[in-house]
């Protein structure tokens, strides 16, 4: 499957899950979809049969609330059974919680509380360097969670320890829980902040599959004594015209009309 089709299938599946189970965060799932599609379809050295292999790449998904995007990617890569996800998502007794759960195959770390995954990724990267393992450690973060002090502890640490097997990806969709990032807690100039913390910085259009592919592949390959951050400029709700840039889709679950309109729009692309 080409990556554009992979991303399209992810969006349709995330939309369906949010609609069927009346869950939130479709906006954040759509902003990160193309990033995850490139990672899971092209970049990550992972597979269901090598899910515990020491040489696999590790991806820590810090925006655990945007679970439908990750579950969809894992389903497309064969980690998750489609029927089990459809039946299980947020239902009683299932591990398919609406913040990602490490008891689901392919999910490395349970998240949902923000500001945890980058530090864990740092420890994993440190182990990789000390044991000279070949893998790359990825952490996918939201922009809003950069308010958390624990992330800045980890950002200092990663540079000081020269964790050049670590790639952090910021899904910079510019909207957080209660308003725009600029209004709530401004992050700009974000790239300069990471540069000042001695990270290698790459900026990319987070919905340009080709550009993402090139940027993430090179970020994975480079080993120049510094951790790498990819700031992906994205659009909350990307792919559905009436969801794009709208805060309400951080919360609202698509009803029947929303669902059909969004599905038709996505299918037409």
């Amino acid at each position: 499957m080409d990556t554009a089709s992979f991303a399209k299938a992810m969006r349709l599946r995330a939309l369906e899950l949010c609609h069927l189970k009346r869950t939130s965060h479709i906006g954040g799932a759509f902003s990160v979809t193309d990033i995850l599609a490139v990672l899971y379809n092209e970049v990550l050295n992972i597979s269901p049969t090598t899910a515990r292999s020491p040489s696999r790449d590790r991806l820590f998904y810090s925006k655990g609330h945007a679970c439908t995007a990750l579950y969809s990617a894992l389903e497309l890569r064969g980690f998750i059974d489609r029927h089990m996800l459809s039946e299980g998502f947020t239902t009683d007794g299932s591990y398919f919680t609406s913040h990602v759960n490490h008891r689901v195959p392919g999910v490395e770390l349970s998240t949902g509380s923000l500001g945890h995954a980058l530090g864990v990724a740092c420890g994993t990267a440190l182990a990789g360097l000390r044991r000279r393992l070949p893998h790359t450690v990825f952490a996918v973060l939201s922009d809003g969670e950069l308010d958390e002090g624990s992330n800045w502890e980890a950002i200092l640490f990663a540079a000081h320890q020269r964790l050049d097997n670590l790639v952090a990806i910021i899904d910079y969709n510019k909207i957080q829980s209660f308003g725009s990032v600029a209004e709530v807690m401004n992050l700009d100039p974000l790239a300069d902040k990471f540069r000042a913390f001695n990270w290698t910085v790459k900026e990319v259009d987070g919905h340009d599959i080709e550009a993402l592919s090139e940027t993430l592949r090179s970020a994975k390959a480079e080993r120049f004594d510094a951790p790498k951050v990819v700031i992906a400029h994205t659009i909350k709700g990307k792919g559905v015209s009436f969801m794009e840039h709208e805060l309400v889709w951080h919360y609202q679950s698509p009803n029947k009309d929303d669902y059909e309109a969004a599905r038709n729009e996505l299918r037409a692309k």
Partner: protein
Amino acid sequence: MRNTFINKLRSLAATHEDVFLLCGDLGYSVLEPFAEAFPNRFLNVGVAEQNMTQVAVGLAREGYNVFTYSIGNFPTLRCMEQIRYDICYHEANVKVVAVGAGYAYGPQGVSHHTTEDIAMLRAIPNMTVCSPADPIEARAAAEFMVHHRGPAYVRINKAGEPTVHADAVAPILTPGEFIKVRPGRGAAVLVTGAILASIVHEVRASGRDYAIYSVPFIGNYSRNALATLADTFDAMITVEEHQLNGGFGSSVVEALSDLYSTGRISRMPKVRRIGIPNQFIGVSGSQEYLRRQAQLTLGASRSDA
């Protein structure tokens, strides 16, 4: 105790090649021998306890047996959520080690008084809470922690504590056990942590016929051992250098109540809890002074213990 624990950890690390020690920029004059012996398995992560805990989880996921080390509230309360979610939910093989239990850093003020940690940490599923009483228990605690797989917390007093136990104590601690320190008939005094030495001294000096037990692990008590104590003694006294709310004494009362409500014991002993009366003590003072201020003694003889 801290040197005993760390030195034992260092000697075990020679044969247990998965032991990894992280510190939060504390441990001067204590950790250097470990760092020199195992530079590839030691790291000072800076004054950043949330990240220290998360890095520990990352290392543990890759197969290391990770120890985080700092003073009192910093590797514990400061990063409670990392302990709850990253360590305990993921059952990560991380041991949190805090020095300065209770008022061990007395003159340094309330920031350094470690007096709510037991209550906080014992509430979390999968966490094993250990509070050794003297250098012999600290050494046996290190042995336990190197062999234990999963989350644990060790609360260590500081330096220069007297040895209470004869050397006959087992070289490795067992969770749930009550270690008899002296026999007696009038009451069973259950003590956790380094205040044990002063309680033993007080009982001896006052001539009371009290049995004394050291309890190095909080919670998950051996049901048989606790039931035997409850059947043997009408009166029990718990002692801890920690707030009364939710601490060691509470854990004993809860366990006894569980035994009683399920019919495992036929009557509840009278339990007197000695601990800090749920207050901060903001004045400066030595550990001994602050213990007296908090009335962490058995006090005047009472017929009902």
